[in-house]
C-alpha cells in the first residue's frame, strides 16, 4: 500500500523547470530519503506534496485521494506534517506555544491534552527544559529541533523533513537518528538530507534528484554504488 504518490508532477518558475515530470511513490511506513545537489528541486518537490506551492502540472495522491487541488491546510489535516528548510517558527512566542499551535486543531479545546502532547514532543527532540523560553531566544540548533517537534507532535501519517540536521551539533545529529528510528513504523517519513551519514543510517530507500528529475532510486547500498549518482552528487559534495 502506498501512502503517497505523484503522477508526472512538474513545477516551472518562469523559464526554469525546477521539478520535471516526477512520478514517485512512498509505501506506507517507509523512511525515504530525498537527496540531490543544491538546486535539484527537492524543496520545490516536497512543497508541492504539502500544497505549500501549487504544481504546474501533474497530480499528487495522498492516502488514496487526489489532493492536487486541495489547499495546504486540508492536506495537513489529512495527515501530512511539513517542516521548513529555512527555520520557520514563532520567534516571539514561547517554545511551548509554538508546539501547542501545531496540535490545537487536533485537541480542540482540551488544554490538558494539548499540554501532554506538547511535553511529549519537546521531550522527544530533547528540548523540554526550554518550554517557557521565547522561541526566538533559542540557539539555531534548538530552533531546528523545535521545528521538528512542531511536525512530529501532529502524529502525522507522513512527516516531511527538509534538511532537519542542518546546523545541528554532532550529538544532536545522533539524537536525531535515534529519533527517526523510534518513529519508524509509527509514521511514514520523507527526509531531505545533505548529510550522507544520516541518510545511510536512517533511510530504508533513497531517491536522488538532479535537475528536477529522478536520477536514481533504490536501497542505500544500491545508491551508494550507483556510478551516475557518484558523478552527479556524491563526487561533488
Amino acid at each position, binding site marked *: 500500500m502506498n501512502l503517497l504518490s505523484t503522477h508526472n508532477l512538474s513545477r516551472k518558475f518562469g523559464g526554469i523547470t525546477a521539478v520535471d515530470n516526477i512520478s514517485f511513490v512512498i509505501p506506507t511506513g517507509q523512511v525515504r530519503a530525498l537527496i540531490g545537489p543544491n538546486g535539484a528541486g527537492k524543496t520545490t518537490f516536497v512543497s508541492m506534496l504539502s500544497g505549500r506551492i501549487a504544481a504546474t502540472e501533474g497530480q499528487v495522491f495522498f492516502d488514496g485521494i487526489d489532493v492536487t487541488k486541495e489547499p495546504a491546510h486540508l492536506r495537513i489535516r489529512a495527515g501530512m506534517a511539513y517542516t521548513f528548510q529555512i527555520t520557520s517558527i514563532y520567534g516571539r512566542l514561547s517554545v511551548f506555544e509554538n508546539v501547542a499551535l501545531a496540535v490545537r*486543531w487536533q485537541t480542540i479545546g482540551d488544554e490538558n491534552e494539548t499540554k501532554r502532547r506538547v511535553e511529549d514532543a519537546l521531550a522527544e527532540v530533547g528540548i523540554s527544559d526550554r518550554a517557557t523560553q521565547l522561541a526566538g531566544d533559542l540557539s539555531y540548533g534548538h530552533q531546528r529541533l523545535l521545528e521538528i517537534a512542531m511536525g512530529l507532535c501532529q502524529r502525522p501519517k507522513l512527516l516531511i523533513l527538509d534538511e532537519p540536521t542542518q546546523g545541528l551539533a554532532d550529538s544532536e545529529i545522533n539524537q536525531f537518528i535515534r529519533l527517526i528510528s523510534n518513529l519508524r513504523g509509527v509514521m511514514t517519513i520523507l527526509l531531505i538530507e545533505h548529510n550522507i551519514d544520516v541518510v545511510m543510517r536512517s533511510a530504508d530507500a533513497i531517491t536522488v534528484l538532479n535537475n528536477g528529475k529522478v536520477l536514481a532510486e533504490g536501497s542505500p547500498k544500491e545508491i551508494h554504488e550507483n556510478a551516475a549518482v557518484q558523478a552527479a552528487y556524491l563526487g561533488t559534495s
Partner: protein
Amino acid sequence: MSELKKSWLLHLGIVALLFVLQFVLPSYHHASMARIMVLTCYAMGYNILFGYTGLLSLGHALFFAAGMYGLSLSMQHLEWLAGPALIIGLLSGVVVSLTIGLLLLRTTGVAFMIVTLMFSQAGYLTVLYFGEFTRGDEGLVIQQELRSIAGIDLSDPTSRYFAALLLMTICIIVSLRVVQAGFGRVLVAIRENNERTRMLGYDIQRHKLSAIVLSGTMSAAAGACYCLLFGYAGATFASVQYSIFPLLWVLLGGAGTVLGPFVGTLFMFYLIDLSSGLTTAYMLIAGFSLVMLTLFAPQGLVGEIRRRGLRWLP
C-alpha cells in the same frame, strides 16, 4: 494564582473601579468618561484586527459609521424604537464587514491598507451623497425622548455612564475570551508567521474573515451606542480622521493587549483635552507626546508594562 485568574481579576477590577468612579467623578469628567468608554469599544474592535491579527486597516470608520447610521437612519426615517434600531446598527456592522472582508481576503500588505482606505472613503462619500437622509456634515440629531431602552432614559448622565460601562464590559469579556481561546491564539499565530500557520493546518482566510467581522461588528456596536448615548450622527464619524483615531489609540495603549485600547483612548482624550486648555497649538503638544511615546514605549503603554514584567497580561 493562575495567569487566567489573574487576568480576569485585573480586568473585572478595572470594570469595578469604573463603576465606583461613577459616583465620585465631577460632572465634566463623568461625561468625558462615558464618551471614552464607548470610544474604547471602537478601539477594542480595531485591536482585534490590528493588534491580534496584524492586519492594518485604514478604514475602520466605515464600520463605526455603519453602526451609527444603521441605528440613526432606522430611528429617524423608519421611526423604529432604540432597541430594535440598535440591533439594526449591529447587523449593519456584520453585513458591511462581511462584504468588505470577502473582498479584502484577496489582498495583503499595502494593498489591504489601500483597499480599506478606499472603501471607507466610498462610505464617507455615500453618507454625503444621500444628504437628504443623512443630512451630511450637519448630521442627524436624535431626539432626547427617543433615546431610551426599556424605560431607561439613556440621555440621563448616570444611565448613559452605566450603559457605556456595560458596553465596555461586554467588549472586554469578548476580547478576553477571544484571546484566551484557540481562535485568538491562531490570530496571533497569523500575525507572527502567516506561512507557518497555514502549514500547521489552519485555514488562514477563514480566520482572517472571522477577525474582520468580529472587529467590524465591535466597531459598529460602538458607533451605534455612541449615536444612541450622545444623540448625534454626522459624516465626520465616517471620515478618514475617525479611521486614524483607533489606530493611534491602540498604538498608544498597546497593540495586542486587551487593556491597551482603554489606556490609549483615555490617555489621548485627556492629552488633547489638557493641552487645548493650555494653548491653541494643542496638536503640537499632543503630537510631541505621541512621538516621545513611540520612541520610548514603542509597544504602547500597556505593551511596555507587559514587556517589563507582567508577561501574563493578555
